């Protein structure tokens, strides 16, 4: 089985914020499934990529969506010239090949889909493929990682208790201002002053979380803004284009955010 396309060649940049690296390493040692919690754009996906590279495992990422079925994860029979042929789904591929399988935004998938992962995340470590009549034991290197943003989904979309309790959780938040500025500098290739101002701006928007905004500006947004500035756009325009306009459609909120950004500049 060739999983080499899923291997990460160069080290993805990741700036550790706390003890997340050591916890992940410890979890991987015993192949415990890991749940990454935190707001969007704070580095969850990058962290998984970094850890996959660091642990030397291939990484298979699946972005969950509400139309996703168990077959989309596990695999299905397809038609070929001379009959049917079984096609492994991404999860099955990872289980067979010993990759890290990363299910991004798992709550987006329907609850009956997510129960597929249950046998993989307890002592059994196996994936039943009932269509093939196969009980697939997980490769010793296989690990399951899911991400989960508890903030913005409605109460309707939540993980089942039985799913939640199978995971080690690592909580991600926005890094401390100095570290976040360092990340923005590194990712967008900008100078320190700009990165610090952008982080300050992000702080303003994060104050409004729950007061009209579902989420504050993410680190990803700041990197986008910094890149716009790097391409010659004025700072306030860049902040408007990459933060204010994407984050809200509420005119008053936009005006207040713009004013707060102007105060930081």
């Amino acid at each position, binding site marked *: 089985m060739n999983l080499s396309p899923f291997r990460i060649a160069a080290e993805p940049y990741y700036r550790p914020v706390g003890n997340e690296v050591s916890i992940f390493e410890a979890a991987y040692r015993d192949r415990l499934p890991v749940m990454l919690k935190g707001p969007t754009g704070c580095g969850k996906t990058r962290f998984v990529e970094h850890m996959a590279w660091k642990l030397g495992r291939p990484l298979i990422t699946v972005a969950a969506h509400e139309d996703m079925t168990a077959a989309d994860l596990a695999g299905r*029979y397809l038609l070929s010239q001379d009959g*049917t042929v079984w096609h492994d789904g991404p999860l099955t591929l990872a289980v067979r090949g010993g990759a890290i399988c990363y299910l991004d935004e798992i709550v987006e998938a329907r609850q009956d889909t997510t129960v597929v992962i249950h046998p993989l995340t307890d002592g059994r470590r196996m994936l039943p493929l009932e269509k093939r009549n196969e009980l697939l034991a997980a490769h010793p290197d296989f690990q399951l990682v899911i991400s989960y943003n508890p903030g913005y989904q409605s109460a309707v979309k939540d993980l089942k208790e039985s799913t939640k309790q199978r995971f080690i959780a690592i909580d991600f938040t926005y890094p401390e201002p100095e570290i976040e500025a360092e990340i923005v500098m590194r990712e967008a290739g900008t100078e320190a002053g700009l990165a610090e101002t952008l982080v300050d701006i992000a702080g303003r928007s994060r104050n409004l979380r729950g*007061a009209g905004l579902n989420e504050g500006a993410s680190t990803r947004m700041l990197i986008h803004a910094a890149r716009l500035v790097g391409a010659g756009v004025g700072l306030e325009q860049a902040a408007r284009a990459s933060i204010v306009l994407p984050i809200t459609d509420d005119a008053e909120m936009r005006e207040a955010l713009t004013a707060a950004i102007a105060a*930081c500049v």
Partner: protein
Amino acid sequence: MSPARRPRLEVLVTDREQAVARLHQLAGARPALRSAFQPAWQHIASGADPADLEAWASGILDLANVNAGPGCLVAAWQISVTLQPRLGLVALGDVVRAAAELCRRAGSRAAQAGLNACPTVAARLHGAGEMLQWWRSLHHLAQTAPESVALVASNVAAILEPAGLGGWQSFLSAGLKLGGTDRARRLAFFGLEDEAARRMLARLGETVDFQHVERGLKLFLTALWANPPALRIAPHGMPGSGGVGPGGWPRRTSLAGRIVLMPEVYRGVSPETARLLFRAAAAHASAHVALGAGRFPVGQLKPLQLALVGLIEDARIEALAMARFPGLRRLWAPFHTAAATGAATAPGLLARLARALFDPTYVDTDAFVVKGRALFAEHAGRLDDPAMSRRVGNLLGNDLGQQRLQFNARTYVVEPAYRDDGLGLWDFTDPPAERADQIEVVVDAMRPQPQAGEAPPRGEPERDPLAGGRAREAASDGRGVVVATYPEWDRAGNVERPAWTTLRDVPPPLGDAARIDALLAARPDLRQRIARLVRGARLGLPARLRRQIDGPDLDLDALLEAAIAMRRGEPPDERIHRDTVRLARDLSVSILLDCSQSTGERVAGYGAGPPVTVLDVQRQAVALLAEATAPTGDPLALRAFASCGRDDVRLFRLKEFSEPWGAPAKARRAGLQPGLSTRLGAALRHAGAELAAARTHRRLILVLTDGEASDIDVADPLDLVEDTRRVSRQLKARGIDVFGVTLDPCGTGAGAAMFGAGNCMKVTRLDDLPARLAELYFRLARR
């Protein structure tokens, strides 16, 4: 021409062609008038066109002919002298004629007040046309409130200044509506002693008021400080150190602990500037709260020293704030307009010092300003220490004191305009009694009061721009528990009047529950039809169905399996489609019943037997509907309303959402009697506010009314229709469907105008109701 015919000829001619001569005769005949007329005439007549003079004189004669009295005539001459260059004699003749008409309607005192107001009016309005419109508005007022004309004319400056002619007219009509038949109330309104009049004036100004910017400011401050102070409108007439403008309006922000009291408006600035000024003021005040440290003891400081220490503290806080948020400098800078010119007055020097400490590029050579700057720079290393403000302020206070400059604490207004009045800095060991009271009032107002029959309130709800107005809690009196006050749309003025209607929770009278059961038992056929329709309506979230025999999409998995089966030689499963249906019921309904007097009217042609009223039909319809929805588990609330003027909109809670449709609810329903009027907008706003809390996918307000909106204090029912239409739209925008079911015996109601043609249905016979309900539910299910 024979002498015998001369008198008749004279009469015919004088009115039109010899008015000037007649006027001279009239003025000459009375010594009291003569002395005033002569100089005025000389002024007016010099170089004037004779025809114009005739036209003017005939106007004056009109005034004389209605016995306006010498005071009016003298006033007319005076304004003629003053306004001749601006308006011209012909227009002045019309103005005087309008005064004569007013004199006829409201007496000479009113006419004279109107004439005296003319120079002010002319200065505010454009040309003779607007001037005459202004007079016509007085004529209109004189029809219903002759006693108020003189009063309102004498207040013309205060009203026209912020409001302009359109605002003036809205103000008059609002006064008439508000005062109604209460003469004393009208006098209080037009004398600007009524709180509502003052608030109205503040809103009429073309400037942006606090309510426009409140949410934006709150968001802005939250963004800056995470935990910002609360913003409130400063109470009217709050005494402060010169922070109060003419008429008692606060002109500056004021700090009261963690509350920032904002002026309701900033006068005399354009809307754009007002927005910036509000933002600058909020930023400044919140910086005090976020970066300042406690209050200074007043001790023996004199007013000038208080002002100076306040100024230095402002500069210190702003320096700290700008170190944190450099962009605030651009927000504040435009308001520092003091220039290093002119006579050195204490307020002038204070404003210049404020600018010097704020703006490093500002040049001022005044010794006091230079010293202030130097002292502040000396202490620049200790910006974190509030004591430095006090020290520098005291040193400077001695300087200014030695210059023997007048400083009047009563008239002093802190400059620039965005700064606070400075009183919040001080710990008055013996606070001025009135102010302490005011603070208590404000703090009390913030304290949430539990609403009758409601769960304890949560935190202050966020202001929703689409909300049908925010409910404001109001004090209770004997007419039932005040639940909330709601705004109302003023069709003529094109403004939403905040806190215009007061909603009271009145316990419904109890009737015999058996009567409702009897009503239901009488129509078993209808019961079954309605119950079937309600249960059959599929409302709720869409759900996917896989492996269907039929459907709009192919189910890929099923398709593959079918193909696989065929290759295996097995019969394939034919269920290869996908479908989407609305499965779960997820609907809250609030039914709003009109029980006004007009629902007591009989319904013509409603079967045989005893006469049936609209309310009876409603009673039966609601009983049927409530019974039908009970087994579906849909939360259903029943409310009835009637009104008696805007401050007495009564709400009867017949059934709560969670309450079963049992004997108590039936008894409340049976006891309802027709009475009073229909102020639908207020009731609808309340039903919307209650339903907004429901956590269902679909929310529906069913209004059962006779389609005739009216109230005792509303002259034009169209006002209420417009208001209702506005609420319906606002609720629609919030995802609450409003359907009007008009039980309309005569077919004259304005259901379509209030709810929109698609959201309203007319039912004349109860037998029609099942069909109408079917329409309603299918319409809902389609959306």
